[in-house]
Structure formats: C-alpha cells, structure tokens
C-alpha cells in the first residue's frame, strides 16, 4: 500500500508519475472529464494508490501548459456539462518516447 499524498507541495512527490498516468488514461480511453480520469486511475492502480482525486487538476494544468493535452466543454453521460480533456499529438509522441 503506497499512499501518495499529492497535497505535499515539494520534492519527493512524483508529479511525473501522476502526469504519466493521466496521459496513458487519455490515450487509452479518449476524451474524459476530470472525474473520469481520476476514477480510472484509481481503478487501474487497484488499491495500491490512495489518490486524492483533486490533485488531478494541477496535473491536468501542467500537461495543458506543456501542450500535451487540450480541453474543451462537453456533455457527460448524465447530461452534466463538464470540461473534457484529450491528448494531443505532442502528448502521444511523449508517451511513446
């Protein structure tokens, strides 16, 4: 059990790991909103990761700033308006590298 608390601001927090997981999720599942990405990461980690779901947003911001993903408004399954994130070509290139 490896609880990674992303709320700690510095050093030993593996930002890179969360970013990578987000990218992989988007590459595999296509455009998703924040909640969907977080849920999926939790599922895939299968309990070896105690994720504070909110920490996904700084990660999404980072990735957006690097140009590895873009975002747009969309409709969720239960007709709720949400922001959907999708991976960009640059992001895909980074993943395969």
């Amino acid at each position, binding site marked *: 059990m490896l609880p990674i608390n*992303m*709320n700690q*601001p510095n050093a030993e927090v593996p930002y890179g790991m969360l970013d990578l997981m987000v990218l992989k999720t988007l590459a595999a599942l296509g455009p998703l*909103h*924040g*909640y969907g990405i*977080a*849920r999926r990461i939790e599922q895939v980690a299968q309990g070896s990761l105690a994720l*504070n*779901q*909110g*920490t996904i*947003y*700084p990660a999404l*911001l*980072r990735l*957006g*700033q*690097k*140009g590895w993903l873009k975002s747009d408004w969309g409709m*969720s399954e*239960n007709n*709720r*308006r*949400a*922001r959907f994130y999708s991976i960009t070509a640059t992001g895909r290139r980074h993943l395969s590298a």
Partner: protein
Amino acid sequence: MPTIRSRLLDIVFRGRRDRRLADEVQSHLEFLSDEFMANGMSPAEAHLAARKSFGGVDQMKALYREQRGLPFIDSISQDVRHAVRGLRRTPTFTVISVVILALAIGANVGVVSLLNALLVRELAVREPSSLVQVAFASAGETDGPLTYTMFQELSARQQVFFAVLGWTGASVRDVEIDGTTASAAVFSATGNWFAELGVRPALGRLLIENDMSLAPLSTERVAVIGYRFWQRHLLGDPAVVGRTIRINGVALTMSALLSVVIPVCDWRLSRMSQSHSQRSRSLTTCL
C-alpha cells in the same frame, strides 16, 4: 516558452480561470456524490465521502495557483494589497508620509528640471548646434566681449559663418509703461537676431536689419517684449503692439511679443561691448 505564455495569460484572465476551476471542482464533487449515492449512501454521507475522496480543495487550489500564473507577481500583488489595507488603518501616518515624500520628490524634480533647462537641453532656437560664440582673448581674460567696431569688421570680412549675430549682456533696467514703473531684464541685439534664430513673434514684428541703420537713422526705436513680462506688467494686453515703453528714460515702441520664453540671456552667444549698447537702435526685453 508555451508555459510562460500560458502563465502570463493566466495573470490577465485570473478571475475567469479561478471560476472555471471552481466550477470543475464543484462538478467533480457532484459526480463523486452521485457515485456514492448510487452505492447506497445517504445524500449527507455521500457528500462527506465525496469530499474525502477529493482531498483538500483549498490546498489543491493553492498548488494549482502556484503552477499557474507567475507566483512572483501573485505574491507581490498580495503584499501590495496587504500594505494598502495597513495604510488605510493609520490615516495620519499615511498622510504625513505622503506629504513628506511629495515634497522631497518635488524638490528633486524641480532641481533636475532646472539643471536640465539651463545646462543640458538645447536652446529653443533654430539649429542650436550651429551656434558658436566668438569672444575676445586678451592677457586679462579669454572670454571677453567684442567692441562694436570689432563686430562690424567681423560681420563684413568673415567668411566662415553663415550669419553673425550680436547682443549685449542683459542687465536689469527700470522700465516705465504708462506711468507705472517696473524692473526688467533688458538687452540689445542686432537686427538679424530673431531672423537667424528662427524665432517668430506672437504679435507684431520682430527686429529687422533696418532697425539698426544709422544712415539714415531709423525713425522708430523698437522693443520686443517677452511673454512673461507681457503677462505680468502689461496684464496680457492684446493691443500691446504700438504702445510705448520707456527704458532708462528712452522711449521705444513695443513692436512685437514673443510667444515662448527663449533663454536668450545666454553666455553662449556672441556679445557686443556694453559701451555701444546705447548706439543700437533696437532693444529687446528678455525673460
């Protein structure tokens, strides 16, 4: 580079982006609540569980803000706001400080402007860099004036300068206008003075060559009035041209008004000897 651009944009659109994040967080929490309620929790429990699953919202927002925008500028603006609030709370101190600072800054600006006008800035005349001073060097002084005869010789025979202007040093004289006396700084100049310097009058006509002629004697002695003198002693009279001014008892007709203050009382220009100033037919006031 894209990151920096994004951060700068974030500063500009801060309000909008803050709202967007808040909306997203709210939406995310609602998704979580829905999920927990679907699993059988009551709305209150689901709400709590959602918050727990999400983690600390404010901490996340702080992290987010750090990532976004330029934290340097953010912290500065925060400090500025805090300082302003503090200053508002102690109005007396603030007012006194502002007054002292204003006085000090004003004094400095005044001194620098004065130095600038006197020493650094160019003369407000045409082609100031083409002006040179011709002086008389003798054993006693190297910067002496020329006599009128010297000046005439120079004008007639020199082949170097485009034009030769002459003037006497300014001195303060008693002037009288319609019975009222005042003091003014006065100097004489050659007829080509204003023409060569490219100065235009606001009213009337400036000196011309003929004003200096001794044969035939020019019938009218003319004076050119400076702007500030006009405002102060002539009360800005628009009909000033044609009125009489007495300088040291000698009557002259005021022929023109200068629109700008030109620092003609300047040691940088050629001078005629003082003793011949009475000979000259034109008189100028300068301010």
